[in-house]
């Protein structure tokens, strides 16, 4: 629990019932927290005082690390509110920190991501952005953009000066390289988003293919009821699994087949919807018998791009014989045994790989924020338009429009580049002036 504002310490003194309570800033102390009205002990907590401006919000701040019981927290809250504190609005502390210049806008966004982060990998990404890595990473990009702007701008402004001509081809190549790099960074958003929000994976297949067994295996505990009776799973179950730091939300679905009772057909309808919403579909095929067209049919009904085929029950002796034709036809199919756990790691990698390897930048920095992604996309589009004009032989003042737009868009991530910065670059590059 956090108190922020100029009266934080005063309130804390009243809640520990000690008006001589002047803790050293940043030092943690164990104190009894009492009801200011009657002195009744509410909790024993670690109390930390932060003095302005050395706190998160930039204001005086006291933090109480109390025991987790919601009841205790509620009592404390009530006591604080009676002392004239008020509840912070969502994100208010961050807003105050922003307002007090403790953090920048991108840092504020990173904090939000940090709070929302589901797994360690997402936390790592958020904390990298908190340290301003996006801005640092884009700094050289911006400088390279300036290197393209400078010769174009000088050719406009200093036509009477004896400046070296820069070949259009050279500028075009530089522009293409830059565009490629920005797009590559923007493309990490797919992976970045997966890290932040997780991946939705639907397990589909015919009844009794072993979807629920696989589901339990992935979760490492018996979440779904597994029986020999086909069609046991009627409703969809969704649970998260942490795969290499990425939260993957698996949904166990009802098997797809014609007929069955009406409850089962509702479940089947639901399966179709789950599969349609999923980032990836795992088609589970029963390897205990010769698979037929029936087994691949669910794929046709749910297919929306990314699919992994898992051929189950590879622990059975008849598996190899049964699935030989299928595995020759689909070499990417993963053989697994939900029962023994064989092949599960291979399956996990197969699920993750389309999202991770495709969009990972060289230095591992990922774009996880939609605003950043949008800005980079627009930057790339702006550069593209300039590149086309350059190819058409359009006059410099038009070519440069897109470049300045790109510079402004990047500026939202890195801080603004003023016309004077551009001129400064020109004067240090070329000898200008009659």
């Amino acid at each position: 629990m956090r108190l922020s504002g100029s009266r934080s310490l005063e309130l804390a003194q009243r809640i520990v019932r000690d008006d001589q309570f002047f803790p050293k800033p940043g030092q943690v102390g164990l104190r009894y927290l009492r009801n200011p009205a009657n002195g009744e002990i509410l909790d024993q907590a670690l109390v930390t005082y932060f003095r302005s401006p050395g706190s998160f919000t930039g204001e005086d701040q006291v933090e109480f690390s109390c025991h987790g019981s919601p009841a205790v927290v509620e009592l404390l809250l009530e006591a604080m509110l009676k002392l004239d504190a008020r509840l912070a609005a969502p994100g208010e502390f961050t807003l105050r920190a922003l307002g007090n210049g403790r953090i920048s806008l991108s840092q504020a966004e990173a904090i939000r991501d940090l709070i929302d982060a589901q797994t360690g990998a997402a936390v790592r990404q958020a904390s990298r952005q908190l340290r301003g890595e996006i801005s640092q990473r884009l700094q050289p990009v911006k400088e390279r953009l300036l290197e393209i702007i400078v010769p174009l701008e000088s050719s406009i402004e200093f036509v009477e000066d004896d400046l070296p001509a820069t070949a259009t081809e050279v500028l075009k190549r530089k522009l293409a390289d830059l565009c490629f790099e920005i797009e590559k960074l923007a493309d990490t958003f797919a992976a970045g988003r997966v890290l932040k929000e997780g991946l939705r994976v639907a397990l589909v297949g015919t009844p009794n293919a072993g979807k629920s067994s696989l589901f339990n295996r992935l979760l490492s505990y018996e979440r779904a009821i597994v029986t020999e009776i086909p069609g046991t799973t009627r409703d969809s179950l969704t649970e998260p699994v942490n795969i290499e730091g990425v939260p993957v939300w698996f949904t166990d679905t009802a098997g797809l087949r014609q007929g069955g009772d009406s409850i089962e057909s509702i479940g089947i309808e639901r399966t179709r919807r789950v599969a349609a919403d999923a980032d990836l579909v795992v088609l589970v095929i029963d390897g205990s018998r010769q698979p037929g067209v029936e087994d691949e049919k669910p794929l046709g009904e749910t297919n929306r791009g990314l699919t992994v085929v898992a051929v189950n029950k590879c622990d059975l002796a008849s598996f190899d014989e049964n699935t030989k034709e299928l595995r020759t036809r689909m070499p990417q199919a993963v053989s697994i045994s939900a029962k023994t756990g064989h092949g599960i790691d291979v399956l996990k990698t197969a699920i993750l790989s389309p999202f991770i390897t495709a969009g990972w930048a060289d230095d591992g920095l990922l774009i996880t924020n939609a605003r950043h992604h949008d800005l980079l996309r627009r930057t790339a589009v702006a550069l593209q338009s300039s590149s086309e004009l350059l190819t058409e032989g359009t006059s410099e003042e038009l070519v440069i429009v897109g470049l300045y737009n790109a510079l402004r868009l990047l500026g939202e991530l890195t801080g603004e580049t003023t016309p004077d910065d551009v001129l400064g670059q020109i004067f240090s590059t070329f000898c200008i002036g009659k």
Partner: protein
Amino acid sequence: MIFDERLDVIVIGAGHAGCEAASAAARMGAQTGLITLNLDLIGQMSCNPAIGGIAKGHLVREIDALGGIMGRVIDRTGIQFRLLNRSRGPAVQSPRAQADRALYRIEMRQALEATPNLILRQGQVVDLLVKDNHICGVELQDGRRLGAAAVIIATGTFLNGLIHTGKRTYTAGRAGEPASLELPESLQRLGFPMGRLKTGTPPRLDGRTVDWSAFEEQPGDERPVAFSFATGRISQAQLSCYVGYTNERIHQTILANLNESPLYSGKIKGVGPRYCPSIEDKVVKFSDKDRHQLFLEPEGHDTNEVYLNGFSTSLPPGMQQDLVNMIPGLENAQVIRPGYAIEYDYVDPRELTPSLETRRVKGLFHAGQINGTTGYEEAGCQGLLAGINAALLVQNRGSFRLDRKEAYIGVLIDDLITSGVDEPYRMFTSRAEFRLALRHDNADQRLSERGKELGLLGEGDWERFNSRREQIAAIRDLLNSTRLKRTDPAYGEVSRTLGVDLGDSITLAALARRPKVGPELIGSLLPQDLRESCYGTALDSALADSLYAGYLKAQSLTLNRIYQHDGLRIPEGFAYTGLSGLSREMAERLERTRPRNFGQARRTPGLTANALSTLLVQLTAENAA
């Protein structure tokens, strides 16, 4: 207070800012007095004998469109006209002209003498008379006192001017003229924050001693483009300039003698312009260049004097002579006026409101180099704005401002009062976000109505403007309605020349937007009977409008999105100091500028992104409250 003379507006200094200011105030009906140290040197060009150039030419055309005089004077006295950037789009083309220096002075003085409500006085202002933070007049060195409710200071490099050549220094306003030493004291007493800047000028040569054959001739345009919308024809006989180069020997000699240069010995403290470096600077900072370009510019018809542009220097005069003689073609050339560097005082322009009035003293205006700018054109447009606003002030009318979107003048003033200066400020087209909209050829379309409202545009000018506006509109319609069809006889050749198929038919407006299509081609495709009426500049302007229209629309969308908070108003007495989270340095920068909206705050130099977001959050919160 007893005054020898009472006026409405007093202008101190008759350079390019002062002349424009005095002319505008007087023509707006204010009784105006122009005080100069020397009546024979009104409108003197202290440095190069030329007006215009990229962005600077735009300023002159804007001055003219508003009803100023610089454009008309240079058109009557220009001896070489060139439209720069002809190969590029119309937005970045700009006129430039070499002036007959002496003729320019005479023409300017005549223009002022012919102006009603305007009196000229020779004298030196030594004190500003201020009562209750309101200006009430000036005192001259000879004891005369002149009263006025508005005073414009346009003193150029004269405030504490200090000339350097080699190791010698002496006070001067410019070569051969006394500096103004008491006026800066008066400004200091009033509490104005002041700084030092530096500029320089090259040696002038005796043209009879130049071997012209060693240089490359640079003639003017065959069909000169005038500055003033009122000018029909350029009447002065046209002369050529000549281009030459320095060489390694010169560079080595300069490097070996840097200790003689006050720039490098540490004597000069003021900051000079980066885009107008001395030859010493060029040689030191760009040591990889084996030659630097020089221009020999004639000073006029009735003189042999030649201006050696590109060779600005403050080395000792004797050494200047030696260096000049090392230039191929100048082996026997005689220096008749040595180059020099000059340091002078300026007043922090962040003291000013958008009407160029000081916030400290009501009725006091600053224009030109005192505000840290460089260039005749930059000075002229400030003079015009200050003159207009001084007249408006004494007439109790609201002030006149120009926006960044409507004029380079607006960009210049906004930059000055928002960012201040740390080197002499020169206009560049890249300073204008809306460069594509601010063309030299459409200055009248942007500004002449404003000039008319102010009373600065004569009846003849107004009629001419209206007829041009109608012509442009008519041609615009014609371009949109006339189509080049595959069946037309001209189609085949146009398509072949451009190397593309143009479809079954294309409007002339769309055709004109293609690269490599010039006004001549479009003109030739217009219907025969209408071709005659679509003469020259109206066609050019209509085509340029059509070329940029799409870009401007897209650009304004982009800029609006990025700068969506720019309009957020900052309350008059907003307290930056003590704003939680704003460092003292950031608060000081903002206090000094006192931006009126978030956009100006954003452009304040040296502000960190954190400081800006702090301010933004604070303003948003206050607006929400």
